């Protein structure tokens, strides 16, 4: 039967509210007599607080309280937006306290002010006096791992984790190889730059519980972490998420919620708001892990990989947050793309004194894709094999099991992505153009890079989701999900799913404006590109159950003379129809009304399901790019760039292409512009603002092409695989490969800034 809602470009339900300014984000919801909180942050990168003097701060008119580490809960808690683990060995590191005397990064949280106005709170911050004992600080793993380095967290040797995943036998593999190729590369510390900064407020509710209204990707996880931070039963907290102004992983972490609840606790439960500045978000929330890779692979002359050795060292900054999970994910993504019969993936995650690294769109995969795909390009040149052919020779196939993730993939569309992508990109024509441009002395180049991703975190992490549906009196449906809308459009997609499965138009399905741990079914939240896939399963299950109940009710309420025993019914466009001839059996609205108001029979129809997903599906795809390097300025101009994705069935093409465009843009600036930098003499961030940190404007982004290869995946609830994070994974290596093609030199550390290019070109000139 033809789809009615899936695969259609549905407009997002909240768009009108957003273009008129009526959508309420956390900071837009007025509270009576709200106090304002501010955090006093360390002015050194590593050391101990010797003394804190708050006496002058307390004298500022409007200041209610100043909190020091002695005044707040001292439980250690983890912050990562991972589901709780029943196995303590697998729990996230609980290395955070609400306030600290042990300073581990520039901007660490020492004290907090609560005042009647933001201005008074700011003024008071300036009057707090802190004396420090300063320690040596470390900005890179190289520094924090050196002999005799101080421990940032006691008893760790500055290593969060050090793991090795292996397949086959590396040495035997290397012996079989005809050629060994080595490759080192580096990906930098970058930041999410979601447009809405971290913001939350907290108060004690009339029932005596603590409510935290916050811009988060993980309401249910946030509630659990609040319980851990205060050593209180989790049910004593309620977390509410209004509209969220973007997250990209920055809000898949609990960064300010314990603090703002502690502030409210300090003032008897009055509402207190904590609204971070952009500079604080950059310096003190979360960043992407910088990772350096050392790689050595063995090939047969025909291009087959026989062995691969990767060492990945990840800079986790001052606190564990998501920690080792990010770099550890890389190994399985290599084996998702390519068959490496003898493989060693050695990953290490290291504490330093920079901002804590957590989840960021792609979760370690932009990094590993950069490593493996720049490597494949370099290797192809050394082997004298076309880079597409080298990939095809080594690519995995559908129905194969990933030897590191132990999950079978039912679809694998990279081959199709390459074929369709080449055509769409007009690759052959561009090859000629680029050759002609090169002849004319231009530094023009072409590049490609592939990626593999996952849909959710299973089997590493729990994948649970819930959905509740209520059939309203008019036949419309109220949908409640614990999955978290943060701008990516999940609620719109879930509405399409309900509409498709039940048989009503999409605009008859209503989403919630907030996610509320009191009323939204349990779901772990917005991350791992899991929601359309994992939460989608719960939505489908609930929709099927509701439809089943509707059909039974239709029979229960059959009119006299209407056949009720053997008839096969369906729901289509708000009508219960006979399957045999499509004729009307009863209007859904009429039926719903009877279920509510008939004196003696029927009940209001609801479905309330929870679902555990014990599957995964890997989306694939890649980026094609055509660019030119300006010899004089070192600037890169992108002429054409295409992302093509195998994400299974696309639920909403308009919103899907929007996801891809946003992800591509992040990937482009990852390659060329972005890096959060630190002053090596003070440990202070140098560019923690939107002016100096080069986030792209509209002038910096070229026209983007997007395409999909739609191979229905049997695991996905509607044949779909994940899409949110994948677009960010392959642009950077594709751009680097194209630059290498253009200038004839491999630059392996991003961002590839004009300065780097000019230095390389100058050095090349000298050689000649």
């Amino acid at each position, binding site marked *: 039967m033809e789809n009615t809602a899936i695969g259609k470009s549905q407009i997002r339900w909240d768009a*009108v*509210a957003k273009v008129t300014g009526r959508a309420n984000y956390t900071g837009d919801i007025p509270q009576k007599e709200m106090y304002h909180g501010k955090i006093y942050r360390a002015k050194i990168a590593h050391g101990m607080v010797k003394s804190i003097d708050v006496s002058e701060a307390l004298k500022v008119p409007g200041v209610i309280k100043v909190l020091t580490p002695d005044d707040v809960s001292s439980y250690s808690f983890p912050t990562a937006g991972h589901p709780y683990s029943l196995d303590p060995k697998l729990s996230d590191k609980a290395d955070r306290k609400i306030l600290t005397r042990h300073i581990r990064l520039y901007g660490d949280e020492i004290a907090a002010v609560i005042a009647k106005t933001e201005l008074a709170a700011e003024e008071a911050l300036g009057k707090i006096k802190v004396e420090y004992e300063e320690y040596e600080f470390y900005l890179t793993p190289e520094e924090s791992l050196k002999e005799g380095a101080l421990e940032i967290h006691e008893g760790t040797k500055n290593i969060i984790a050090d793991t090795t995943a292996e397949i086959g036998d590396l040495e035997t593999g290397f012996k079989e190889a005809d050629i060994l190729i080595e490759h080192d590369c580096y990906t930098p510390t970058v930041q999410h730059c979601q447009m809405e900064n971290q913001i939350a407020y907290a108060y004690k509710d009339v029932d005596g519980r603590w409510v935290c209204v916050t811009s988060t990707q993980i309401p249910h996880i946030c509630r659990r972490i609040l319980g851990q931070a205060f050593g209180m039963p989790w049910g004593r907290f309620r977390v509410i998420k209004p509209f969220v*102004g*973007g997250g990209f992983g920055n809000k898949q972490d609990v960064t300010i919620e314990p603090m703002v609840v502690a502030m409210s606790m300090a003032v008897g439960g009055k509402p207190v708001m904590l609204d971070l500045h952009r500079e604080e978000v950059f310096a003190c929330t979360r960043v992407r892990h910088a990772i350096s890779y050392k790689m050595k692979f063995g090939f047969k002359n025909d291009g087959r990989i026989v062995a691969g050795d990767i060492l990945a060292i990840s800079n986790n900054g001052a606190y564990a947050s998501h920690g080792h999970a990010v770099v550890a994910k890389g190994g399985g993504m290599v084996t998702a793309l390519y068959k490496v019969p003898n493989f060693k993936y050695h990953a290490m995650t290291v504490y330093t004194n920079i901002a804590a690294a957590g989840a960021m769109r792609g979760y370690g995969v932009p990094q590993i894709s950069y490593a493996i795909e720049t490597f494949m390009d370099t290797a192809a040149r050394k082997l004298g094999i076309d880079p597409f052919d080298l990939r095809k020779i080594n690519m995995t196939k559908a129905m194969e099991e990933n030897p590191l993730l132990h999950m079978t993939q039912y679809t694998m569309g990279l081959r199709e992505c390459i074929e369709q992508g080449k055509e769409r990109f007009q690759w052959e024509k561009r090859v000629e153009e680029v050759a002609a441009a090169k002849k004319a002395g231009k530094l023009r180049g072409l590049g490609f890079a592939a990626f593999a991703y996952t849909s959710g975190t299973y089997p590493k992490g729990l994948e649970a989701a819930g959905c509740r549906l209520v059939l309203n009196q008019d036949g419309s449906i109220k949908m409640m999900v614990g999955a978290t809308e943060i701008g990516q459009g999940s609620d719109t997609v879930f509405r399409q799913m309900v509409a498709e499965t039940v048989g009503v138009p999409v605009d008859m399905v209503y989403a919630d404006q907030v996610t509320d741990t009191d009323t939204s079914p349990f779901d772990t939240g917005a991350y791992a590109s899991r929601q359309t896939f994992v939460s989608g399963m719960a939505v489908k299950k609930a929709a099927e159950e509701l439809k089943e109940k509707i059909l039974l009710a239709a029979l229960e309420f059959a009119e006299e003379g209407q056949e009720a025993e053997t008839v096969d019914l369906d729901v289509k466009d708000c009508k219960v129809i006979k399957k045999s001839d499509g004729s009307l059996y009863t209007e859904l609205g009429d039926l719903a009304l009877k279920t509510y108001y008939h004196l003696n029979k029927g009940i209001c129809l609801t479905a309330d399901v929870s679902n555990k997903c014990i599957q995964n599906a890997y989306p694939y795809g890649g980026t094609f790019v055509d660019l030119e390097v300006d010899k004089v300025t070192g600037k890169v101009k992108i002429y054409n760039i295409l992302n093509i994705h195998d994400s299974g069935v696309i639920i909403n093409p308009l919103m899907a292409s929007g996801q891809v465009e946003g992800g591509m843009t992040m990937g482009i600036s990852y390659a060329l512009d972005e890096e959060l930098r630190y002053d090596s003499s003070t440990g202070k961030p140098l560019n923690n603002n939107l002016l100096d940190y080069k*986030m792209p404007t509209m002038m910096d982004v070229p026209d983007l092409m997007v395409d999909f290869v739609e191979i229905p995946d049997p695991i996905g609830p509607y044949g779909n695989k994940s899409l949110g994070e994948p677009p960010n994974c392959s642009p950077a290596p594709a751009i680097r490969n194209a630059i290498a093609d253009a200038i004839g030199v491999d630059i392996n550390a991003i961002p590839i800034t004009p300065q780097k290019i000019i230095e390389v070109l100058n050095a090349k000139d000298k050689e000649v």
Partner: protein
Amino acid sequence: MLKKINCIINGEPKEIEVDVRESLLDMLRNRLHLTGTKQGCGVGECGACAVLIDGNTIDSCIYMAVWADGKNITTIEGISKPDGSLSDIQQNYVDKGAVQCGFCTPGFVISTTALLNKNDDPSRDEIRRGLSGNLCRCTGYQKILDAVETTVEQRRNSKK
């Protein structure tokens, strides 16, 4: 120190008491509850707080509230038509998928309104330049460009 100012906001004359240290953004959000105007940086870098002052796009976070005395100000709440229907620009942002998280959207709609008032036939490059003071992390700007170009085209066609 508090000071009284008089200005027109979304067509209505207002008399407002403001702190002399307060930004126009804070005045709009905290005193008038016009929370459609957003704060993304507070220092003039992102355009989320854009409003129209006498027809020009201004970052309200770096514009003192007291300077608004005697000015004609339009916020996102004043962009829709009096009957509540969307302006053509708003409608195209909705239809073209130019809205994701929506936090940048009010600022973009304001900047687009001013841009098209001043130049009714901007090229793609002129649109890029005209809206480069507004940052968006979600969309990659493509669908925003689509929405603006569609508006230009519709206006051109309706003139014919």
